[in-house]
């Protein structure tokens, strides 16, 4: 480890290019967020490739047909159009071609191209009858996590009605982008167990969640619709999960100053789950159900069962900041040593991570750390890199993209229950690696 050049955590890049990148773009995060809204037509404002790449990417990641449209900006519209023409034509062409398509919301995100040419996309709403939400997501800024968060913020800002009244048991969850559909569903159920009427924004729990149905891949099938988004101002409680989602929570507080906001950087491990439960108990003034209490005991048992393997192991984690911070804390809570966290983008939450090295980078930067690690938690691209290295290092696939595994949308790492599964998965993988010896 002494030979690896030290890279500091910084907002600035440490080299001019990315080699084997892990960063993904803002418009992709925005498009995914729109897929988490019921009957939303996600529309990417850019050249056809932006949407095509995103579509292929999500199709392979989720193994589901992906609803994603584009405005196909061409050389002429790139110069002469201020945005309105391509967007309106696209909506007209798409709905004309498929008359059974009844979008209840147009979810528009911009791209690097249309931001560079400076399109003003705000005005489109005045020309169409379908509700419209726009979000500015140039792909030369931020990343997937911020694109997703900006979309949640835009939906609230543009559509939620301002009010001062609240409904005491109504709760809004704002999950960060790296949460799987099943995780959103589980956290919603968890809150419902405390008697909350629970909403999530965006809500992928019924979208891309591995569910067989007809007419898939035409419109978003998320569990929250535009009518419900309009009424979110009456939530008594908003819970943001992941630092990136705080902007969306703030947007909601502006709609109704009486809402109480609770923020959690993540929901992994005993401490954060306890904090979350304590908050819900305080609001509802009730005890958790027996099943929740029981899973806390199972998590504790899992922590003890796995501490020996994890406590003697070295880890490297790559991914979006809000995902990395939770995994790190859970592994550290059972004695794991995290040698390096390589993040896609800068986020101040990275400053809180207790790993030996935390920085923004790519897989080229990560490889030297792979060579000393027992287990790597990374995306699909890490697989080949680990395969060609001499030391046998295990890999657990998390984050985007995961082209290798089927059913990854049903993997749950959150709260007492998910953390238990996660610890066992890590420990079992470590046992496999360590039994193989240092070389396989």
């Amino acid at each position, binding site marked *: 480890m002494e030979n690896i050049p030290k890279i500091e955590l910084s907002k600035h890049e440490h*080299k*001019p*290019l*990315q*080699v*084997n*990148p892990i*960063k*993904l*773009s*803002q*418009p*992709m995060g925005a498009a995914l967020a729109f897929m988490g809204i019921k009957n939303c037509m996600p*529309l990417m404002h*850019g*050249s*056809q*490739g*932006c949407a*095509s*790449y*995103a579509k*292929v*990417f999500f*199709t*392979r990641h989720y193994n589901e*047909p992906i609803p994603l*449209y*584009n*405005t*196909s*900006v*061409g*050389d002429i519209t*790139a110069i002469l159009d201020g945005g309105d*023409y*391509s*967007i309106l*034509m*696209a*909506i*007209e*062409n*798409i709905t004309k*071609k498929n008359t059974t398509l009844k979008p209840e919301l147009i979810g528009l995100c911009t*791209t*690097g*191209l249309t931001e*560079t040419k400076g399109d003003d996309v705000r005005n489109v709403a005045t020309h169409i009858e379908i509700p419209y939400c726009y979000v500015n997501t*140039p*792909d*030369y*800024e931020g*990343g997937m996590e911020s694109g997703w968060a900006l979309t949640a913020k835009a939906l609230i800002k543009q559509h939620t009605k301002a009010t001062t009244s609240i409904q005491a048991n109504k709760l809004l969850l704002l999950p960060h982008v790296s949460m799987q559909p099943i995780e959103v569903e589980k956290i919603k159920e968890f809150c419902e167990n405390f008697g909350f009427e629970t909403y999530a924004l965006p809500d992928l729990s019924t979208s891309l969640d591995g569910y*067989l149905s*007809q007419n*898939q891949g035409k419109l978003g099938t998320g569990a929250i619709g535009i009518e419900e988004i309009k009424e979110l101002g009456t939530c008594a409680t908003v819970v943001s999960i992941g630092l990136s989602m705080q902007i969306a929570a703030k947007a909601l507080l502006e709609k109704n100053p009486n809402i109480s906001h609770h923020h959690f950087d993540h929901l992994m491990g005993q401490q954060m789950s306890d904090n979350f439960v304590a908050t819900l108990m305080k609001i509802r003034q009730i005890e958790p159900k027996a099943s929740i209490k029981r899973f806390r005991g199972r998590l504790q048992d899992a922590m003890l069962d796995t501490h020996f393997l994890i406590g003697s192991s070295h880890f490297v984690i790559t991914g979006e900041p809000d995902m990395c911070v939770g995994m790190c804390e859970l592994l550290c809570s059972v004695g794991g040593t995290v040698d390096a966290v390589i993040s896609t983008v800068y986020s101040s939450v990275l400053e809180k991570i207790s790993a030996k090295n935390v920085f923004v980078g790519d897989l080229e930067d990560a490889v030297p750390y792979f060579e000393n690690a027992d287990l790597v938690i990374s995306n*699909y*691209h890490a697989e080949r890199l680990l395969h060609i290295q001499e030391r046998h290092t295990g890999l657990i696939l998390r984050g985007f993209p995961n*082209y290798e595994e089927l059913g990854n949308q049903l993997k749950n790492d959150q709260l007492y229950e998910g953390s238990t599964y996660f610890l066992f998965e890590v420990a079992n993988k470590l046992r496999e690696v360590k039994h193989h010896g240092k070389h396989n």
Partner: protein
Amino acid sequence: MVSRAKIKELMNESACSHNKEKKKGEGCDMPKPGMAAGGCAFDGAQISLFPYADAVHLVHGPQTCLGASWETRETLSSYSGRNHTVMGFTTGITTNDVIFGGDKRLSSSIDYIVEHYAPEAIFVYSTCVTAMVGDDIDMTCKEASEKHAIPVVPVHAPGFVGGKNLGSRLAGEAVLEHLIGTKEPEFTTPYDINLIGDYNVTGDMWEYLPLFEKIGIRVLSSLSGDGRVGNIRTAHRAKLNVIVCAKSLITLCRKMQENYAIPWVSVSFYGKRDTSFAIMEIVHALGDETLIQKAKEVIAEEEAKLEEKLLPYKKLFAGKKAVLNTGGNKAWSIASGLQDLGIEVVATSVRKSTAEDKEKAREYLGEEGILMMAPASEQSKIIDEKNADILLAGGRSLYTAIKKKISFIDVNQEKKVSYGGYNGLLNLAEDLKYAFSNPVFANVSKKAPWEAQ
């Protein structure tokens, strides 16, 4: 820089067959807002050149262009050095570069790549944003090329100029302008060919290259499946250009005919008939009697071997009927493969096919065969009417198969094995065998206990 004149020329390719039905100057379709599916010009350019494993492919643009697209295509390479096709390189420009220009970042990135990876060449792809802000990519590449003494090739196919096909043509232009004719081969033979447009996806080429070797055909260079930059630079010395299943690179071949008097043939290696036909096309074009004789022998021998291996499958597939719903040349190439296996193809989709593809589909399917113009609405009815046993289509049609309780193969999904050449037919046969015997489609069509029976 990419100019409108160049794009117009490429969109009006005179050698392109489907251009004949259009009015003069009309050319290929430009994308219509909301209607364009499929990749952009940059995507097409990248697909065409990426298989060069000895070169680094540097994408000069923001995050979407490469971040989501690297290491996604199974374009295999036998290169013994560091295989750059499974790596991703991008300048990943930020707001600063959009405002002040990205030339400096590009130039430092090239220096970094040469220092750390020492490739044989670097392809630099412009993208929407870097083309729009006007980075002088040509100059940066020229300077870098002189500084590092390796080809640094600018590829100008920003996404907004059009679709995949155009991008592929633009990639051809870059190769023609910067690489072909810049190096002499160590030796030449009268049987030297260039393979154009086969990207060796899942090792397709490796299914037929051994046959070439047996016959005595030598592949001088490839654009770009399992290709090397060093070889494509010598491509001007070949005797024949062989286009494999790709209309997009016709312009390149026409220009090579004009500049270097190299004739070209267009072939496909899907199925037995096409493979044999392709080989005969090539040897006839090379025009050497002993070569033709040798080719006939090899084909006879290979076909006999294949027929024997196909026998058990043919027995299994006897009387089976298939409906095919896929795009472009797959409309007839997969149909041809299915027929070689003794399966009757009762319908195929020609929704996105060119006039030439439609003709071929008609020829293969015969008068009885149905050419579907609106497969999404037609296929269900045809399956009933013709009593089809299997549907080969993209994932979106899965539900049709389940509803009709027939077998299904997703032909658009990234496949892991090759369907090319003679052996590819055996791979297709294996996949079909398992699809026909799998009860899953009938099982998932069963109603839940709470649904009306």
